[in-house]
């Protein structure tokens, strides 16, 4: 399997405070990889560093090309879609406009129209509400919209930051089912950051565990899920 994303010795800073202390990991093409860890471990910072939304040093390579020192908006053009924490919904715009914005860097208008229909097939609730102001959707619906908006890019890699946050357990199941389907059927590689380790490990094939800005554990998701010691000491279940 080829490596799609390769992160080496990543250090990130918020002002004077260092949040990541030399973090290295990689993600294979077609994989669904999860980054686990407690609050404040540096999961979100890692995703933000990949998209150059926080000051960082170290090597980030996507498909063999370095991403360092590129602007956030140009990194999107490599085919990296980032669903930020809190979903980043354009709340004052309609659901359909949100989807169109996901495809704003694409030029193929026919493809965009058919992709919007595809998203409505994935997420029927969005079709029902396509003229509605996106801010009026429920949390779960907004998360669906955020995933759909990211997919409108036709990304090669999707970065998801805590997709389960604030959602009812049933909605989370639903959402994770769809993510698995997108990963298998649309061949989108996914890097998902989660606090809900149990669920993320069921879904993922690879997993990394972060603690205070360092990778402390990595491996096959099943192995990690089955290792009681890791579960107890790092994942808390």
């Amino acid at each position: 399997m080829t490596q799609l994303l390769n992160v080496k010795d990543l250090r990130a800073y918020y002002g004077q405070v260092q949040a990541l202390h030399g973090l290295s990991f990689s993600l294979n093409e077609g994989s669904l990889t999860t980054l686990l860890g407690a609050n404040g471990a540096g999961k979100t910072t890692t995703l933000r560093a990949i998209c150059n939304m926080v000051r960082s040093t170290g090597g980030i390579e996507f498909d063999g090309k370095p991403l360092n020192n590129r602007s956030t908006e140009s990194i999107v053009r490599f085919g990296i879609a980032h669903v930020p924490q809190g979903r980043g919904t354009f709340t004052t715009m309609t659901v359909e406009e949100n989807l169109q914005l996901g495809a704003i860097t694409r030029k193929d208008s026919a493809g965009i129209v058919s992709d919007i229909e595809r998203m409505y097939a994935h997420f029927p609730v969005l079709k029902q509400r396509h003229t509605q102001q996106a801010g009026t959707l429920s949390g779960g619906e907004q998360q669906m919209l955020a995933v759909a908006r990211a997919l409108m890019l036709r990304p090669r890699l999707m970065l998801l930051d805590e997709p389960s946050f604030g959602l009812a357990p049933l909605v989370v199941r639903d959402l994770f089912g769809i993510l698995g389907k997108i990963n298998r059927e649309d061949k989108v590689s996914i890097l998902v950051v989660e606090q809900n380790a149990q669920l993320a490990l069921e879904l993922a094939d690879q997993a990394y565990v972060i603690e205070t800005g360092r990778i402390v554990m990595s491996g096959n998701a099943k192995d990690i899920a089955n290792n009681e010691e890791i579960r107890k000491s790092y994942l808390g279940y």
Partner: protein
Amino acid sequence: MELFTNQVLAGIATGAIYACMALAVVMIYQAIDHLNFAQGEMAMFSTFISWQLMQWGLSYWTAFVVTLAFSFVAGIAIERILFKPLAKAPVLTNVAGFIALFAIINSSAGLIWDFTIKQYPTPFGSAPFLGSQLISTHQAGMIGVTVLLLLGLYFFFQYTRIGLAMRAAASVPESARLVGINTSWMIALGWGMATAIGSIAGMLIAPVVFLEPNMMGGVLIYGFAAAVLGGLSSPFGAVVGGFLVGVFENLAGTYIPGVGNELKLPIALALIISVLVVKPAGLFGRQIVKRV
């Protein structure tokens, strides 16, 4: 009754200008969260450019179009040179920037064209409109041009991809960058468009207030009043606010004893303060419906 109709129509005509100024102010406010105090001076300078072009023999409409293009580019240049570096600076630094811009433009215009009052032509003439004494052809032209401009802007923002991208960049900048929108250039584009809109206001009002470096002072205050009344977060509100302020100003000047022409401006300021006290978000200010 005729006096009333006459005053309302005249109010709508000057209100069109206030609407343009308010819209320009709101566009920049949406993009960078600051009030552009120099909006009026920028419009005045553009108007002088168009006047100069006509002095050099260009026809009115050629000068009009060239001035629009000049203003658009100048707006972008001002943003790139002066306000992009200030993007992360504190509010007061930006305010100082705007005041500096105000002073620089005002003095340069005085230096180049001096402070004497100049006649400015109108392409619409000043005969009674359609034989009616109620409104002149120039006033009708002011309303007509503004309505066309507003329709054009509506279609631009509602139905073009770049319009959509500009709205996205103004509403949630971080998400806009994450879908690949170059928000920095969207802000510059907003400056260019706002400056061009302001220049239209300047060229339309110049035949009424005459051309001189301080011509836009009062107009901008009315524009601010309109923007505050309509709601600084709402371009639609700014436009409605502009027409309301124009009509209100005229009716107050006509019917409230002792107001006359002299006290019209304080009325605009009183309006700003009352709106800020009673309804800070303005008539159409954004009330985001949000569920968490």
